[in-house]
């Protein structure tokens, strides 16, 4: 197998593995890796370089993870944070835990938002319901049949309370997401070694 026959398939596979990156980022990486391989070829060290780079997918993963993590960390918003956690969850256990933990709080935030809106749309069914006989409580939209046994406790305070709790849940989800992103950025240094 000639050197070209070794470089080209690697570069094609690397290009495919990096396809979800922005074109300018991908092209810059591909150009640099190609330059690296061509120089090693001239030094008759191509095989050594290919072994050290690992498979094209492994090589791409190093860039991909660094970029996703850094974008999420720099942006700081929930979309990039969740996007990075979702993208990395199948490969890194820390991301999977982060997604689970942050996801629970984001879902709670969404639930509180829906409750606040429901108080406007169906005020007779939305509320903070307490069933003293069963010792149960629930915030949200209740089944019409259950209104006979449950008592609504907040009245017009439901909207500000639900909105406040939603914001708290959103902040907690965001803090947890960024905590796991930071943790993975620190762990990236471990993998260098």
């Amino acid at each position, binding site marked *: 197998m000639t050197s070209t026959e070794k470089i080209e398939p690697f570069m094609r596979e690397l290009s495919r593995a990096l396809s979800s990156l922005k074109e300018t980022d991908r092209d810059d990486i591909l150009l640099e890796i190609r330059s*690296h391989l061509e120089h090693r070829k001239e030094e008759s060290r191509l095989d050594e370089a290919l072994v050290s780079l690992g498979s094209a997918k492994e090589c791409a993963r190093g860039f991909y993870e660094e970029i996703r993590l850094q974008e999420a960390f720099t942006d700081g918003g929930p979309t990039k944070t969740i996007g990075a956690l979702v993208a990395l969850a199948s490969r890194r256990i820390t991301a999977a835990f982060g997604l689970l933990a942050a996801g629970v709080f984001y879902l709670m935030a969404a639930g509180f938002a829906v409750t606040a809106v429901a108080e406007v749309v169906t005020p007779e069914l939305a509320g903070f319901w307490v069933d003293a006989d069963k010792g149960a409580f629930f915030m949200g939209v209740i089944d019409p049949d259950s209104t006979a046994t449950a008592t609504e406790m907040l009245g017009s305070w439901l909207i500000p309370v639900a909105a406040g709790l939603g914001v708290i849940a959103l902040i907690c989800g965001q803090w947890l997401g960024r905590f796991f992103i930071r943790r993975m950025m620190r762990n990236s240094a471990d993998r260098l070694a």
Partner: protein
Amino acid sequence: MGIDSWKSQLRKGAAELAVLGMLREKDLSGIGLLDELSAKPEIGLSDGSIYPLLNRLEREGRIKGAWVTPKAGGHGQKKYSLTPKGRAALKVMSSIWNGFKVQLTTIVGDE
């Protein structure tokens, strides 16, 4: 914790400091950095790990890459230089590292 795990922990962050330190004196490409590091295997940087690190440092604004084509022809190389932000980070990191090294040496000795 095994020795390998301890070694991995010890290297945490060292690769970044090593790269910034080498770029303090002169601009280098990824290959140039690897060749300089070939005599220092304990730093633990390889072909596969140096480019994602350089990519991150460039995104963070600590280094700046520029493509250079040799006058005699041949393949171009992306050469990296320290930015003022990278130089400031290196100064702080070096100071912390030197303090750490001195204090640890007083405990474990230098042999």
